[in-house]
């Protein structure tokens, strides 16, 4: 809260306990004291949220002021003399704690917070061992009826941390302070059971055992767990976490406020770990001989068989699908196995569906892929444009940054989306376009900036004139007709995003997976250039992806066209071959779609799928199914028995993000290393171990085992040129080199005509904030709060169709029909539908055929 418009003095010099310190004006006494290393006890103070001043434990004396002031929320004044501890102050602190303990339940033996309770620590520290105050005992009901969380208001000291975190950081405002006097508690405003993001950041903030995690309750005392720092293995935000493990099992995930993400997680980060303990895990190698069922085999049998058969089929008849879930090192080993040992460049991944081509395009225009800066830069933005993304669903860490910018930095927010999202309440402008028209709309924003004359210095960027002339041929009328957003709205939004200090541009699923991805991404990049987002004073451009290591996977060369570090074959095949002591084929391999084509045509006979579920992910499920059935060899290396895994000839059980060491690269290009918190479940092995073993079996000339991580990192760093040897991030050995060229250029826009809709409704897919990919559908915690795919429909359309929440609707496309449960939602415009893509059932990709979403469909009561 340091932003003061009419602030004369910039600093203040104060004396605390006789020591002088000079601090910026607006600094609190508490922070000034901390500068001097003086600790003042606090209970309700939480650095990351606004101050509260509720507990009154931090009282200090200020010379000349007759009453004690609370250090946490009193700004300093130049020249003041502060004393932080006197007998009188200590007495106030003790008495205040005595009051706090009036009727506080002494159920510490069964309280989840015992051992990590700030109230305990403070009472102990201030030696509060008696209480002269008393009052009639009245017990308030405990909320056992909430999902994932439990609230015991009797233990609450009303510090407000949970409420503030929920409001200021998560932006949910699910809990509030309700009622009066001694009955004041934290509850939902409606008093109905909690219905929220279930991010559990309130649990993390609670200093007592008031808000606790139900899945963790009675799993063990805090001190009984081995705590290992880790990197969250769900979305692309790369949050730093702590795994709490006992007896080889993860029972809790927390995050410290000292981390990069300030302790803030989402439902997946905090509760998704239940997937790791899921009974759906495959924990032993399985094999199917002939027409038999999949049967347990030994690792030697499984690996031996994979090695032999891959080698037999060999070369360009084998293909591999890498994983955005596994580590950089494992993806590197995967492509090395294919390129080096099997001699095939037929490697690709699900990033082919959007992220990879979008980043190739971004690289061509800006000279880098992924986010320009690390995502903290967003917090300092003066304006933010989010295009085609449900931030919380796709990558919650970005949503939290945007909320910070809005709340603490007065950032203006412009949302471009066909459906409302949880950030809508912060939006100064919500440009609600028709599904699929994102390219047109962002082109319209480009045009509006030029029409308003707001392009500023960007007019000097190469390609400006070609952009300008391309926009001249797009009329506002046409843009409005196609997107449903008026010229006035576009011009207003243009005014909001320009000239505001620094702008950030974020683009997500609806842009990256757009049928007209090329123009949608180009328009987003142009917008970033026009607003100065990519300049030195800008707050950056950020593509989003739902999965934790998509960026790292691509860096590691999991694509047919580039070697690790985006080296081309003609430039670097020989170098890699020499390093690997083999011959790397010098022509690009087949991409994901070509692989399916080639399986159909019989050119590819063996497919090795690591940590991916093509059957679930690819459009046209029936086609994929037939193709996979045609394979002579389908190897699936995964942690779950996915739909694809069920078809596999050989299943190799792999390890979760908690069961291995390695590094992930978030979409904003932070490379973070971590070590294993637990051993792989059952007989499963880490992907690295499996791949190295296989490599050794297939091509014994380049011995892969035993290879240490240091050796591996050295090899990756040397060959890819992506990383510096010494890391610039704490706790990580591979700092990513700024692989940027200085170039930046505009590209002309020519959005393609939108297809004529053959059916009355438009169906979109995307992510929910309670899930990540399909992985969390294996987590009982996540399933408890979002257990099935519902069809979101505008309340008006639901009423017109005569359906209410929970009714079933049959959704029919040109290709197929599926039946879905209805969920009316004001986020949807009339005529638009939304289905989350996480769930294995219903098989939404049956509907798509060869087409991409959004898809024209018809609805009928089922």
């Amino acid at each position, binding site marked *: 809260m340091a932003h003061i418009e009419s602030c004369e003095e910039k600093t203040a010099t104060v004396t605390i306990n006789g020591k002088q310190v000079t601090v910026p004006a607006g600094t609190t006494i508490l922070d000034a004291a901390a500068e001097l290393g003086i600790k003042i006890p606090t209970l309700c103070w939480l650095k990351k949220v606004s101050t509260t001043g509720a507990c009154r434990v931090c009282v200090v004396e200020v010379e000349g002021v007759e009453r004690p002031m609370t250090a946490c929320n009193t700004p300093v004044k130049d020249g003041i003399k502060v004393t932080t501890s006197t007998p009188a102050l200590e007495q106030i602190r003790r008495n205040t704690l005595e009051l706090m303990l009036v009727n506080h339940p002494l159920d510490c033996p069964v309280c989840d917070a015992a051992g990590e309770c700030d109230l305990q620590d403070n009472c102990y520290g201030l030696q509060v061992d008696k209480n002269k105050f008393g009052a009639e005992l009245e017990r308030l009901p405990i909320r056992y009826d909430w999902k994932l969380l439990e609230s015991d208001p009797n233990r609450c000291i009303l510090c407000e941390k949970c409420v503030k975190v929920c409001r200021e950081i998560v932006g949910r405002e699910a809990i509030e302070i309700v009622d*009066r006097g001694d009955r004041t508690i934290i509850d939902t405003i409606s008093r109905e059971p909690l219905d929220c993001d279930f991010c559990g950041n309130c649990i993390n903030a609670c200093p007592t055992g008031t808000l606790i995690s139900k899945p963790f309750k009675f799993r063990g005392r805090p001190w009984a767990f081995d705590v290992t720092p880790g990197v969250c293995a769900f979305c692309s935000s790369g949050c730093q976490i702590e795994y709490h493990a006992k007896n080889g099992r993860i029972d809790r995930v927390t995050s410290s406020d000292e981390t990069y993400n300030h302790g803030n997680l989402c439902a997946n980060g905090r509760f998704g770990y239940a997937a790791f303990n899921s009974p759906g895990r495959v924990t032993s190698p399985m094999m199917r001989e002939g027409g038999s069922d999949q049967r347990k085999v030994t690792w030697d049998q499984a690996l031996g068989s994979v090695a032999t058969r891959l080698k037999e089929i060999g070369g360009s008849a084998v293909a591999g699908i890498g994983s955005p879930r596994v580590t950089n090192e494992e993806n590197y080993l995967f492509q090395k196995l294919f390129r080096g040992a099997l001699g095939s460049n037929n490697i690709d991944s699900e990033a082919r569906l959007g992220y990879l081509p979008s980043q190739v395009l971004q690289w061509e225009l800006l000279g880098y892929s992924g986010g320009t800066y690390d995502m903290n830069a967003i917090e300092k933005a003066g304006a933010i444009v989010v295009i085609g993304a449900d931030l919380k669903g796709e990558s919650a860490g970005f949503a939290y940054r945007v909320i910070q910018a809005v709340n603490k930095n007065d950032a203006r927010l412009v949302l471009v989306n066909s459906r409302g999202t949880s950030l809508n309440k912060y939006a100064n402008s919500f440009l609600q376009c028709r599904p699929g028209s994102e390219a047109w709309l962002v082109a319209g924003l480009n045009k509006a900036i030029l029409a308003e004359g707001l392009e500023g210095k960007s007019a000097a960027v190469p390609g400006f004139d070609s952009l300008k002339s391309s926009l001249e041929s797009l009329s506002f009328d046409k843009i409005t007709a196609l997107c449903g957003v008026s010229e006035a709205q576009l011009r207003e939004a243009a005014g909001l995003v320009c000239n505001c200090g620094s702008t950030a541009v974020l683009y997500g699923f609806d842009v990256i997976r757009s049928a007209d991805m090329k123009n949608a991404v180009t328009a987003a990049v142009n917008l970033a250039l026009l607003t100065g987002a990519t300049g030195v004073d800008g707050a950056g451009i950020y593509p989003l992806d739902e999965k934790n290591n998509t960026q790292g996977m691509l860096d590691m060369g999991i694509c047919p066209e580039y070697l690790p570090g985006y080296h081309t074959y003609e430039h670097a095949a020989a170098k890699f071959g020499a390093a690997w002591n083999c011959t790397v084929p010098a022509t690009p391999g087949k991409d994901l779609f070509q692989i399916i084509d080639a399986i159909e045509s019989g050119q590819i006979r063996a497919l090795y799928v690591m940590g991916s579920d093509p059957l679930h992910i690819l459009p046209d499920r029936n086609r994929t199914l037939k193709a996979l059935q045609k394979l002579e060899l389908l190897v699936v290396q995964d942690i779950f028995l996915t739909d694809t895994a069920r078809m596999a000839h050989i299943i190799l059980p792999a390890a979760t993000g908690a069961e291995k060491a390695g590094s992930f690269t978030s979409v904003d290009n932070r490379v973070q290393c971590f070590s294993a918190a637990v051993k792989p479940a059952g007989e499963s092995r880490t992907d690295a171990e499996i791949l190295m073993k296989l490599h050794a079996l297939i091509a014994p000339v380049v011995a892969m085992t035993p290879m240490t991580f240091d050796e591996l990192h050295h090899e990756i760093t040397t060959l890819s040129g992506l990383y510096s040897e010494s890391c610039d991030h704490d706790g990580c050995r591979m700092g990513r080199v700024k692989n940027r060229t200085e170039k930046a250029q505009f590209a002309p826009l020519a959005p393609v005509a939108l297809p004529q809709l053959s059916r009355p409704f438009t169906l979109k897919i995307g992510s929910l904030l309670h899930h990540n990919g399909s992985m969390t559908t294996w987590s009982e915690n996540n399933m408890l709060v979002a257990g099935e795919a519902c069809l979101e429909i505008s309340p008006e359309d639901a009423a017109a169709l005569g359906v209410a929440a929970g009714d079933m609707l049959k959704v029919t496309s040109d290709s197929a029909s599926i039946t879905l449960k209805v969920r009316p939602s004001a986020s949807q415009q009339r005529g638009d539908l939304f289905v989350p893509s996480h769930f294995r059932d219903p098989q939404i990709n049956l509907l798509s055929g060869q087409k991409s979403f959004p898809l024209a469909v018809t609805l009928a009561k089922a």
Partner: protein
Amino acid sequence: MAQVIFSTWGGDVVDNRNVSGEPKAVSYRLPVAFDGERPLRAFMGWDGIILFDKYVDVPAMTAEYMKRVQTLYCCGRCTPGKKGTKVLMDLFRKVLDRKASEADLDTVGDLAELLKNCKCTLCQSATVPVFDAVKHYRSDFLAYINSACGPNAEPAKYIHKITAPCMDKCPAHIDIPKYVEEIRNYQYGEALSTIRENMPLPAVCGRVCPHPCETACRRKNVDEAINIMVLKRTASDYERLHNLRPPMVPKARKNKTVAIVGAGPAGLAAAYYLALEGYQCTIYEALPEGFGGGMIAVGIPAYRMPRTILQRDIDIIQSMGVEIIYDCRVGKDISLPELKQKYNAVFLAPGAHRSKPMGVEGEDKGYKGFLSGGIDFLREAYMGRPTGMGKKVCVVGGGNTAIDCVRVALREGAEESILLYRRSRKEMPADVWEVDGADEEGVKFEFQVLPTRIIVDDKEQVTGVECVRMAMGEPDASGRRRPEPVAGSEFVVECDTVIPAIGQDPDLGFIPPDMGIDITKWNTVVTKYLPLKDAAGKDLKDGMGNMLSRSLITDCDGVFAGGDAEIGPLTVVACVGNAHRAALVIQRWLEEGKAYLSEQDIFDDLLTYLGVYDKNEKVAWLDSGKRAGQKEVHGRERASKGNYREVELGFSDSTAQTEADRCLRCYRMAMVAV
């Protein structure tokens, strides 16, 4: 009665309990009877206790006071307040239940001390009368503790009211500490809802309110007042700038109808609150569509109150089902008796739009360049019609309207804009920031001058004003010094336009004399009031000289009056507060057939009369948070011809939070025994 038995009010102990002979004479600004009927037996509040009746059960009253503070108002947001008042409440309950010990009484003092560390003043100030009671009526407490019979007392009914100095001073009684705290907590929507409970024109009063609340801000006793008005604007701007839909949902339509005369602040406010309750309201407005808002529109220039933003507040009220019939002047296009016959109730809020004459030679001659009045000039300019203004404009007056006129004259293209005022700059009734604003825009001032004659040429075109300089005369009988002309100081101010802006009156010509509606000599509508009297038997009156507690029903049944036409020309916020009350009374009248004031209404008036803010109170606090001022467009260009763009720009949200964080949240509870 009325004699004070005992008092600790303001820290001065008056003890007439056991005096022989003449009791100590002391009086407080309180009526002898709460509502004109029930005697006021005791008063208990932040500054102590006052007893007018020796048979008041002080321990029972104390217990009740603490119970109400703890269970109804204690926000629970700080440890000493939440737990301390609970301990105190239970302690006094124990006393009454005869379960307490004498030692328990000593805890009261300990807690009073500890509660000085509360976050705000509610619980802290509640310990003041409680501590006084235990200290001075210890024997009564001991009577409960030690004997079966308790003190010799008669049961009382208790009535309480939560207030704060700012909230009390605000004529609309907006819960200011609450909305300020909500802004501080990033709850802009909640803040706006809080404001709307008492102020349906938040965008307006966030911009043009003279904010009397800030004169009663306790933070002034530390450094400077909280910028309460701009925080209100912040909440209202937030909704608009985020395209949020106002959350109000009117109750189901009732079949009773109300006609309202005038779409000004009073008319709109009454319509808002009646519509919320489900009544069908129809406003008759004399001006055409697009010019609703009464004096807020045609009396406040757009650079202070942008039309689109005012219109948004009006649109919101219309969206709640209020019908506004424009271009319809009551008394001309439709008669008042007709309205009375057509509707279940009529609310008169015509405002005060008739300029007062200046009393200068030549003003009635119809000279070219002598305009009829400031308010007419502002209206014509606002409506984009010819104003009759020339190039060199003289405005006579010292109020906000006069300032608006000189500033509008510049924007209408005047080459010179001069203000003539008979007293000094310091004495101008206009708000200081408005005068400063005019100064910055290049307005010229002539202070302490009195226009005496309008000078015209042979075509009867104004060419100047003859003035005489004024100086302060000798004190008169009342001790006040009045400005008097200085002999021989005559001079001429050359100009082609003179605009008198010395005040306006309601135009009540539309009220037929036979309706039984009384009109005062100041041309305001008479409404019914409570017979509140002080100990000396004198009527209690408000700052405008009106009876203190008025129910706003006229002597004609079913006809109510409010706003400037009832109060006398005052402020938007006064009109809104007055009209809100009218809406409540109208509702009671429609539902129960009785037009009366609730105990809470009366208590509001009593506290305003008593005064909640104490400018002499010593507030111990570190003066380390400077008051934030809003952003503003500077330079003369802001007043260039045709430039009516808003001059003041409000706060950024983060500045608003920092500013809101300065609030000391000065809640306190008053309670009376009757």
